């Protein structure tokens, strides 16, 4: 590995004020990044500075503050578009989060394009946010919801995709990276096959954009969704990328102010992209904060972030494998992101998470919003550690020690 792809997590920790705090008398080890990431000072200060010096509503105002706020908001769009190499800024729509982005597609493109007897393809490893909107759509229009199966090793079974693509398929909606297994799916390959079958592709990138370099143009998908809060940005801001030619054809999602061109007594016409899909006053400061997060991550380098997380995941898998009673879920280290889900024999994940919290270590326990996946793998709840740029090998060691302590305390 050359120096350019290296990062120093301990140095980066100094950028995140919250990482200096103690939990139950121990320095915080934050290993719940798949749920949400912590915020660097640069993001916190960007929000603060925006509210102190530049805040006003955007687009319609002709006064100075409104112009400054509009420039900052639209500048954030350009920043985000460049970060994920979106082919066209008109396709970058700010939403509340990835969930809202997926719902936007399901409620507009879905209702307009999916009909009785059509097939929507999802996978068994989806987060509920990329399942429930399609369940509702399928039920409402009489379409079929079909699942690409997951192998026992936690990979997508692409043979089953091949079979599913034989029917009257309209859409394949799947995750880039599993929030439980950490599996990195071959988006380009799947997209090519789905396109060859004449269907559209939506990629849930909530677990990939924050952690690896993203190139939407290369992925060639039709829609892609992610959240700001998982990539060091504020809550309340997410992104939908859609091909402009599809977005043009789609009816609006939410309607009202901001998204109209002209309003008569009986009807209205819509604004141009991307504003057609941004009804009401949007999350202006949050977009500015997201822009600062993009700057921060770009400064560190996404190759370096990805390499660091893979290295940590490999180290965690190695350490956990040495720990008796621990069972790892998901594929080998070289095929996964920095997400490590596991169970500990005779200790319920909730009890484990509670015990680790007592040591200042934050992990997640439960179904991680992926109940069908847990059912498929025959698992009750699992525990999950998920890493980011500021996590260290020493924190992995603390995790393993915490598990051993919990085993001594709670094991039977």
């Amino acid at each position, binding site marked *: 590995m050359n120096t350019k792809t290296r990062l120093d997590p301990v140095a980066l920790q100094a950028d995140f004020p919250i990482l200096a705090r103690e939990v139950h008398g121990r320095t915080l080890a934050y290993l719940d990044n798949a749920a949400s990431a912590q915020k660097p000072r640069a993001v916190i200060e960007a929000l603060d500075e925006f509210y102190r010096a530049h805040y006003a509503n955007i687009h319609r105002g002709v006064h100075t503050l409104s112009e400054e706020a509009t420039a900052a908001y639209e500048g954030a769009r350009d920043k985000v578009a460049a970060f994920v190499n979106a082919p066209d800024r008109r396709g970058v729509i700010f939403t509340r989060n990835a969930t809202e982005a997926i719902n936007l597609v399901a409620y507009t493109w879905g209702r307009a394009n999916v009909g009785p007897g059509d097939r929507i393809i999802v996978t068994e490893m989806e987060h509920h946010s990329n399942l429930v909107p399609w369940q509702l759509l399928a039920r409402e229009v009489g379409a079929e919801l079909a699942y690409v199966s997951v192998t026992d090793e936690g990979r997508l079974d692409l043979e089953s995709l091949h079979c599913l693509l034989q029917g009257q398929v309209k859409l394949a909606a799947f995750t880039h990276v599993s929030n439980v297994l950490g599996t990195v799916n071959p988006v380009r390959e799947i997209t090519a096959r789905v396109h060859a079958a004449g269907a559209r592709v939506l990629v849930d990138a909530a677990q990939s954009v924050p952690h690896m370099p993203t190139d939407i143009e290369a992925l060639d998908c039709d829609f892609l969704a992610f959240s700001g809060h998982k990539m060091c940005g504020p809550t309340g801001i997410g992104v939908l990328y859609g091909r402009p030619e599809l977005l043009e054809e789609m009816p609006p999602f939410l309607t009202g102010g901001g998204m109209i061109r002209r309003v008569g007594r009986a009807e209205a016409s819509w604004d141009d992209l991307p504003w057609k899909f941004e009804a009401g006053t949007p999350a202006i400061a949050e977009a500015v904060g997201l822009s600062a997060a993009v700057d921060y991550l770009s400064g560190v380098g996404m190759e370096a972030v990805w390499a660091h997380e893979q290295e940590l995941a490999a180290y965690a898998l190695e350490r956990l494998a040495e720990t008796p009673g621990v069972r790892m879920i998901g594929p080998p280290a070289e095929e996964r992101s920095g997400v490590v889900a596991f169970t500990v024999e005779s200790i319920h994940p*909730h*009890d484990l998470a*509670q015990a680790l919290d007592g040591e200042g270590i934050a992990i997640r326990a439960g179904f991680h919003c992926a109940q069908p996946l847990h059912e498929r793998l025959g698992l*009750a*709840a699992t525990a999950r550690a998920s890493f980011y740029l500021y996590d260290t090998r020493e924190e992995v060691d603390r995790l393993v020690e915490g598990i051993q302590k919990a085993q001594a*305390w709670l094991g039977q």
Partner: protein
Amino acid sequence: MEDLYREHILDHYRHPRHQGTLDDADISCEQDNPVCGDVVRLDVRLKDGRVSEARFSGRGCVISMASASMLTEEILGKTVEELKALQDEDMFEMLGITLGPVRAKCGLLPLRVLQGGLARMEET
């Protein structure tokens, strides 16, 4: 860790009281906690209007299992009216600890199961 998992809670978890099921129970109900998949079933037999036997079964974390075990002890000898009067606070008092909102659901699951069983008994 020691704060939450006090000795009496661990004792109930390691040596559960009244574990099992009852045939021909007067009150019987099973529920799960969709957040973590914990399942608790409760069977209660009444004699002369009072709880004569209670059993619990299921799987779950220390808090939900200990809470179920404690509840089966607590309700012995109580009338149906007394069962209905049981509040969340009574469960917290039995556990003797303060629970955050997520863990409170674990601690209260057995009571919810009992309440579900009581509601079903009323219906039939």
